[in-house]
């Protein structure tokens, strides 16, 4: 089966985001950017399905600026077969991303679309669910285990109460959680090989999706800062503090 994975170029996981002085957003100039960690897990899972002989082709898609090509090259170096960049310098909201990926899915006809459960920049946790709704497909969100067989996929999901297992009919949309797998690092030979893998570029207009934003960001501020308190020197002092705070009698 064909597997489609969606990847997003975001601020690197290890970078502390800084709010711009003018309150218009987070400063991304000269900041290290990487593939969204949950999307790396999505790519890794697709590759593992291919290694098991379940997936036959992996297509990676990204929506973003020209530089998102780097993110797609990373996916190709990890093991995706080809890539599609839907290029725009606009900030694209999950609803529009879902519409674009749905159009790509119409053309590519994958049996499985795997996405990260959320992007670590806008923290929306919405694109996969929206995509599933638009396609009329079932969704397996926050997935920590995935097992496709016989026209169905069994998904184990990390929910608030524990682990929920559902069975979905293919085609289906999957969003990944942290424990699904540990993504591999691309090897140097594979990074070289990825440079010659096909990468097609399109625009949202060509695909026929209106990406006009529905949410206008009026301002972005820093959250209230906590002040570091005191360090105590012993457990007795700590117990004293806890008593003073009324935590213990």
């Amino acid at each position, binding site marked *: 089966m064909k597997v489609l994975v969606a990847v997003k170029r975001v601020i690197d996981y290890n970078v502390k985001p800084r709010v711009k002085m003018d309150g218009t957003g987070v400063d991304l100039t000269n900041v290290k950017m990487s593939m969204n960690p949950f999307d790396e897990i999505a790519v890794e899972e697709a590759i593992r399905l291919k290694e098991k002989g379940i997936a036959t082709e992996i297509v990676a898609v990204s929506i973003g600026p020209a530089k998102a090509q780097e993110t797609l090259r990373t996916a190709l170096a990890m093991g995706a077969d080809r890539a599609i960049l839907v290029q725009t310098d606009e900030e694209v909201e999950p609803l529009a991303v879902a519409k674009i990926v749905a159009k790509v899915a119409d053309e590519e006809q994958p049996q499985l679309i795997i996405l990260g459960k959320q992007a670590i920049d806008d923290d929306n946790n919405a694109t996969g669910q929206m995509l599933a709704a638009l396609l009329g497909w079932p969704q397996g969100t926050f997935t920590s285990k995935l097992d496709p067989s016989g026209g169905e996929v069994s998904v184990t999901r990390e929910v608030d109460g524990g682990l929920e297992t559902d069975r979905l009919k293919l085609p289906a949309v999957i969003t990944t959680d942290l424990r699904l797998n540990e993504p591999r690092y691309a090897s140097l030979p594979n990074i070289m090989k990825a440079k010659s893998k096909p990468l097609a570029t399109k625009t949202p207009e060509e695909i026929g999706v209106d990406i006009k934003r*529905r949410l206008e960001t009026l*301002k972005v501020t820093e959250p209230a800062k906590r002040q570091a308190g005191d360090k105590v020197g012993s457990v007795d002092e*700590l117990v004293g503090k806890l008593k003073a705070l009324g935590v213990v009698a």
Partner: protein
Amino acid sequence: MKTLVYVEHEGGQIKDATLAAVTAAAKLGEVHALVAGSNVGAVADAATKIAGVGKVHVADGAHLDHGLAENVAPVAAKLMETHDAFVAPATTTGKNIAPRVAALLDVMQISEILSVEDENTFTRPIYAGNAIATVRSSDAKKVLTVRGTAFEKAAREGGSGSVENVDVGSDAGSSSFVNLEESKSDRPELTSAKVIVSGGRAFGSSEQFHALLDPLADKLGAAVGASRAAVDAGYAPNDYQVGQTGKIVAPEVYIAIGISGAIQHLAGMKDSKVIVAINKDEEAPIFQVADVGLVGDLFKIVPELTGKL
């Protein structure tokens, strides 16, 4: 504005997160509720009693059991023809269903709101809570998820809503529930606990994690949480995880033990009233947000602390 709050329930009980969603919805206008599930009569009755809730729309059908998004979302979307805002708790249940409803309505969801500024304007955390965005929606209808720690819980008693049975839709036939492996615990739930003791990778093993933290939690009547590193290492189950992509908590007291304080972890607990940190590394970032810190070996400190409480 007429709102429709998605009532999250389990085992016939309404979850606390729903009550925070009711409070958020009340800031927008009239509060209606949607109770979807199988044999949910008792839940519907309980929902009519929540302070501030008017009409309770009840969709009772076998295919709505376990809140399968494929079956619940169309029911909610249908009801949205006569409502202006769909409001769900930002729990795994709410996050699973709300975006699906939003897409059916062609609306961009506003995720994890922290406040309602006016009926179009909301604040929400981005970048793991390192920034707070104020956003204005131009959609005619709104779909919101509500961060439970940011709103007071509506009272479970005092309301006098009415019940109305609604179209239950049909089984999409594309998904089915198999089972829920519940992590059973006699301790309070993480998201509603007054005190949380939370452990990191420094515990070294699942055995030590539980041998040290469980007695301390029992002494304090606390819930037990964990950092991502501890969950990844298998010391604690997934539903213990506190952080950007785990649970968001804001207890009276959060005691972080052997947790360095990565931004992703801080995102999940920095709104706690009092933060206590125990860590052997005095440079650990957790101390920058802690009200009380103790530098030292947790293997000595935790048993001593438990003994002295």
